[in-house]
């Protein structure tokens, strides 16, 4: 595209972002500040993720973009087209074919492999934000690995509701050192981060933070010994492909109380349906 650098961002900005990325990979789970740029979309739509993707994209990469697990939602379509036009890279909706996957809310159901990079759009990078209003105090807690407060929050949930009520952005300990907000992915996806062969990069545009989970890093969801972390999944099979292990969306179909549960990962669902017709 004329008048723009490859993948929209200028090379100096990309270098700055890459430096932050290298540091983030070197210190897993630690939030690295970076000079977030104005992007041609509003904060909250994925400015952090887009800057990370723009900085790591090469001409040979194959890009997949998902939003709420789906490849065909507005944001996913726009961001995919944005990079198709500004970088001229190949795009795909298939998880297995992609080398870079920019995501919001989900980690694909299909197992990731070595060499793949998942880029997350993060609204709130600070896991302690809701508990400790002072940013400086929160940073001190990170520096001293002092995360008792997060356990107080879990304690409160169990005391009031009998279980931990966090269903998304469930806090994790990365490499036994840093508490990390895994972005608004469902708690269901947390175990996919643990010892994952892929590289996971998190970009928060408005908050100007980048953090990372390198391949094969231990990622543990916080819990109590007697209240272990449990996966929460709607107890149904996908109405389209029949999958019983995937994460489901509930879709209201009419105003008579009709509803259906379908895979939130559209690519995975299509693949399962393909297998069924082939069989």
């Amino acid at each position: 595209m004329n008048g723009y650098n490859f993948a929209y961002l200028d090379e100096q900005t990309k270098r700055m972002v890459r430096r932050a990325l290298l540091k983030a990979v070197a210190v897993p789970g630690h939030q690295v500040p970076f000079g977030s740029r104005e992007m041609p979309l509003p904060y909250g739509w994925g400015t952090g993720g887009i800057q990370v993707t723009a900085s790591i994209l090469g001409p040979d990469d194959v890009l997949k973009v998902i939003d709420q697990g789906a490849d065909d939602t507005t944001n996913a379509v726009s961001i995919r087209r944005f990079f198709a036009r500004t970088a001229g890279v190949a795009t795909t909706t298939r998880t297995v074919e992609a080398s870079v996957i920019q995501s919001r809310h989900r980690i694909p159901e299909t197992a990731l492999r070595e060499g793949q990079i998942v880029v997350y759009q993060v609204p709130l990078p600070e896991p302690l934000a809701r508990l400790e209003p002072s940013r400086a105090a929160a940073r001190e807690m990170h520096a001293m690995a002092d995360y008792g407060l997060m356990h107080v929050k879990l304690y409160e949930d169990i005391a009031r509701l009998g279980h931990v009520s966090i269903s998304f952005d469930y806090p994790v300990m990365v490499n036994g050192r840093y508490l990390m907000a895994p972005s608004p992915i469902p708690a269901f996806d947390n175990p996919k981060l643990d010892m994952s062969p892929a590289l996971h990069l998190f970009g928060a545009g408005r908050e100007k933070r980048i953090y990372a989970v390198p391949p094969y890093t231990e990622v543990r969801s916080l819990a109590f010994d007697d209240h272990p972390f449990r996966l929460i999944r709607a107890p149904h099979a996908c109405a389209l492909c029949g999958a019983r292990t995937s994460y489901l969306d509930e879709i209201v179909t009419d105003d008579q109380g009709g509803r259906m549960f379908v895979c939130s990962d559209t690519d995975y669902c299509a693949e399962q349906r393909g297998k069924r017709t082939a069989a």
Partner: protein
Amino acid sequence: MSPDPLLSAPLLSARGLSVRLGRVAALDGVDVDLWPGEVLAVVGESGSGKTTLLNTLFGTQCPDRGVVRYRDPDGRVHDVHRMSRPMLRTLHRSDWGFVYQEPRQALRMAVSAGGNVGERLMAPGINSAGARHYGRIREAAIAWLREVEIDPTRIDDLPRTFSGGMLQRLQIARTLVTHPRLVFMDEPTGGLDVSVQARLLDLIRTLVARLRIAVVLVTHDIAVARLLADRMLVMQAGRVVETGLTDQVLDDPQEPYTQLLVSSVLLA
């Protein structure tokens, strides 16, 4: 039988503490020794340096001159102001405690009573079994609420539904849950009405005696000092003017300033 070296050596020992706040000498060459299980009252009028002394001993105020040494449970001696911050932080939440005059300063008002009491147990570096065990944290919280005479059925209530006296007792439970050997108290009964004060003093005295906790107690209330303290330290303008056993200082004050303080107490 040879005496226990831990009991014959001071738990906390400060030498030559001096702190200047602007042009004012808040502390001027203060020495303090505190033995295990001993309650030391620091009395004096407002502005005499009591709170500065407390904060300096606690490690949150850095002295211009002087040193504060602390003996840990293994008998090692640490310079409080040279400890690394994570170490000091851990110390503040395990072997030491601080009871503020205003309980809202220490408590988390949006967290239930049980969560408040359990917080120190969930903090890192508190090496007790079951630190990450919900059931055991809850058991400890219930036991401590009983200990400070709060109805255990209120364990899930928010502190804002508690009265002033209950809040102060909750703060004490929250502080003592890790069995500290040394607790700093800054006017713990200030701002409470007289009957609540009496009950709280009684509770503090019972707990401190039974658990053998050493206490540095800052107060301007001579009656509180007489009731709780073994030893007393009278401060005026940043200096210690008189020190000795509580009864001795109060019944036979030597310094003019102490005589003034003692004679100013209103008798009911």
